[in-house]
């Protein structure tokens, strides 16, 4: 990053809306590969990471596949989203803080400015935050910064590290599970990610081990014009349990930033993974300028008696395209999806889940709450698929929409495909607004109109928020409040 860039950015920061308090940018010297996407870039990323041959091959195959899709104009367009065509040659595919070439051995060696960034974000990176009981892997642009809490996890045989480290230290696990849930042929953005992913988190919980702390990754896009393509892989071996948290922010930029992540969850027999996300990427200005384009593929696969639960609070991004899903392969396995998605100003969210029932007696639950405000457009798009062998599968889906103001949109598009007659499925949905009676009741008790709105909206989202770990739940409540500022009252 040049000095000139920096000046531009800080000026922009002042210009932009004050509502997004995570919008600061950080002056860290970055190493950038040239803009654009080609085989050389893929090779460069791989060699920067000192990757083994097979991984480079895999990336190149993914790149070939992506190029084919791109040539055939197969970028997915079925979502209810409007955005300008993305120029994939106008993006930095590799951005790493320069001081990382000689990687830090401990937190003390980490660039202080970067630590300050994470401090501003409120990430419990230091010793004192251990009290919070959270082990953090922070990903800055595309490179993993530091992992806390390492030793205690190690004692139990839990592996929690950056994806790059895992490739070096646990290649057998990566080779076995990478692409096993989301193959690079899965979709346009997954193919792109597979070709150019630069880092991410890896967690492995050995058989029978219950991870004593919540694992956490914090993602942040900093460099202007860069894409972030992180890859997360979590494996809960037989009978293992882990709760994983993911948070995301980005500085304020005039131009849009592309984020195309892949998350793969593997819960082997009797394993359980609870995955919580607070997505607060920069949503763009009030007039819909800039913001993060968030195209994410998240999917888990279950063994027998296993469970995967996704909880997400989506308040950020200009464009959200995201469908955390579960392939219920094992008998008696369980999939859950709890989501609050908010689209204010000119934000657009097309999000939901897909539950694919393969095993017998599989069970899935979907609770989706969509809030639309300003000129926001919010679409729930969900799929429930019962395959012929899924005897006695059950699904319950509830998706509710709340409209705040008369210029927004709320849409519900569920796809229910049943190929086994013993399945039982229920889908219900409703659309409403904050009722005048409720508002009046609260205001007559001396509560301001804005606070009353927040109370009602938070209460309405409660079914989802309560699924979050405690600290996250507090943050989510705050985030909803901040994100709705100006839309109500």
């Amino acid at each position, binding site marked *: 990053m040049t000095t000139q860039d920096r000046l531009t950015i800080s000026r922009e920061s002042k210009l932009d809306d004050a509502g997004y308090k995570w919008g600061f940018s950080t002056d860290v010297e970055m190493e950038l590969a040239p803009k654009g996407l080609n085989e050389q870039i893929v090779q460069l990323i791989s060699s920067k990471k000192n990757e083994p041959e097979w991984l480079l091959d895999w990336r190149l195959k993914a790149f070939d596949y992506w190029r084919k899709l791109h040539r055939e104009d197969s970028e997915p367009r079925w979502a209810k989203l409007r955005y300008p065509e993305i120029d994939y040659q106008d993006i930095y595919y590799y951005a790493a803080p320069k001081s990382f070439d000689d990687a830090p051995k401990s937190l003390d060696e980490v660039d202080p400015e970067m630590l300050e960034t994470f401090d501003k974000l409120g990430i419990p990176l230091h010793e004192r935050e251990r009290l919070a009981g959270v082990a953090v892997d922070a990903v800055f642009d595309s490179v993993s910064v530091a992992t806390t809490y390492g030793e205690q996890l190690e004692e139990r045989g839990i592996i929690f590290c950056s994806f790059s480290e895992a490739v070096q230290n646990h290649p057998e696990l990566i080779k076995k599970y990478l692409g096993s849930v989301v193959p690079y042929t899965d979709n346009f953005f997954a193919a792109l990610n597979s070709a150019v992913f630069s880092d991410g988190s890896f967690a492995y919980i050995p058989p029978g081990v219950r991870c004593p702390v919540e694992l956490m990754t914090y993602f942040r896009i900093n460099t202007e014009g860069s894409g972030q393509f992180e890859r997360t892989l979590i494996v809960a071996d037989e009978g293992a349990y882990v709760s994983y948290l993911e948070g995301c922010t980005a500085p304020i930029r005039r131009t849009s930033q592309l984020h195309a992540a892949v998350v793969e969850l593997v819960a082997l027999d009797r394993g359980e993974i609870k995955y919580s996300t607070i997505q607060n990427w920069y949503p763009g200005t009030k007039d819909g300028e800039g913001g993060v384009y968030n195209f994410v593929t998240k999917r888990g696969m279950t063994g027998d008696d296993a469970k995967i639960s996704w909880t997400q609070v989506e308040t950020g991004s200009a464009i959200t395209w995201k469908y955390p899903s579960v392939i219920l392969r094992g008998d008696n396995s369980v999939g859950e999806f709890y989501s609050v998605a908010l689209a204010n100003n000119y934000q657009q969210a097309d999000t939901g889940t897909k539950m694919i029932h393969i095993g017998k007696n599989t069970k899935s639950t979907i609770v989706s709450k969509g809030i639309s405000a300003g000129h926001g457009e919010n679409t729930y798009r969900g799929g429930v698929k019962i395959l012929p062998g899924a005897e006695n599968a059950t699904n319950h889906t509830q998706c509710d929409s709340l409209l705040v103001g008369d210029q927004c949109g709320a849409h519900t598009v*569920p796809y229910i495909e049943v190929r086994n007659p013993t399945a039982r*499925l229920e889908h219900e949905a409703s659309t409403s607004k904050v009722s005048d009676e409720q508002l009046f009741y609260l205001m007559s008790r001396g509560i301001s109109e804005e606070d009353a709105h927040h109370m009602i909206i938070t209460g309405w989202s409660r079914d989802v928020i309560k699924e979050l770990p405690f600290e996250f739940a507090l943050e989510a409540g705050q985030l909803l409040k901040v994100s709705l500022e100006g839309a109500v009252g």
Partner: protein
Amino acid sequence: MMTLNASKIEPNPIRHADVYRNDWDSFVANQSRNGSASDRAHELRRVGWEEFNRIGFPINRRGNELWKYTDLRQIDRMPFRFGAPSSGISLEAIAKMVPLPREWQNVVFVDGVRDPSIADSGSQSDGLTLRDVTAYEQLGALAGCESNAFVSLNSAFLDDGLMVDIDHDVESIKPLHVVFVSTGSDLGQRAVYPRIAVSVGRGSHATLIETHVSMADGSHLSVPVVEISMGQQSTLRHYRVQLDGEDSYHFATTRVKQGEDSRYRSTSFSMGSSIGRHDVLTMLDGEHAESTLHGVYMTTNRQHQDFEISTTHSVPHGTSDQYYKGILSGRSRAVFSGKITVERGAQKTDANQKDLNLLLSHGAEVDTKPSLEIYADDVKCAHGATAGHVDEDTLFYLQSRGVDYDTAQAMLIRGFAAEILDEIEDELLRTFLEDKLDELMPALQQASDTIGTA
């Protein structure tokens, strides 16, 4: 600079384009010789043909939401012929298949043509005029082409059809029963493209029964289009009965435009055809309009039924209700794709949408997609969908009261359909359809392998 990232639906070359073209050329040449039809009809034929010729059948389903679950390749493979001479059929033969009581005003179409040798049975009602659809000044206003292969085909081969003109303030008239019969053909697979236009005058109340039956052994293609325009404070009760043969293909379109305070209520009963599809679109253009779209579908063997049910609220205070129920057995498949759109400003809309399915056998499949698209905040919209099988406890309860297994099973299936059938006010029609369901019962039960397994 903002572009809609909409799917680009690619046109498909028509496999038997020459067959369709030859039939169309001789059809329009014939029509010109007769010189009776209006310019509007001629224009619609031309535009319809050009559009169909451009887009072809939607066999390329990638990215095409409207045809996500229905494969049309076998339609494209067959050269369906228009204008094959009809083998002729007596009114008695038809009356054996469908009721033609004197209580109704019956109009019979054989192979898409209102056969003059079969007199319209039942007497003419005051306030209701029947004309050729080509004389309708609003022809095609609701269903022109709109990049829809089947509506385009219907427009291209627009024949006499039927225009139903109901005067203002007509209180009580006989139900109008329009029967479409398809017979076999020596020329190959027959195609018919009938069109009905209905205009209900201000303050009038009418009943339309639309019945499709086939007397053909082989396969045939039926592509009916119905355009309904409703004046202020009018009411139309529309029953639709689809009993085409199991080898036939049925692609129907119904479009309804509703004025202020109007009530459109439809109940559809679909049992026939190999691949059946019904596209319904009701547009609530006047305030306080009410639209009720109910239906029951039953599929056996390898039948495929697809319902694309759409309601658009463009003004405030509209009420709508979509409610469909399906009974599936054998290796059959049903698709329900409901859509409610509440446009910006259509405040105080109250919309409901529901699709419930009873799956009787392994091998049957239901794909249901009840969707909402809402751009107004002060609305009440709810939707739901279920799929399941006959409850074991209920079955056990009946058996414990001495009802044998088969009878108990049939009772439960009948009970599931009854909710829709019971709302048919016309007793003759209700009895006829209940009998039809009973006729189908053995086929439904034979293929069933799941009742009471859970």
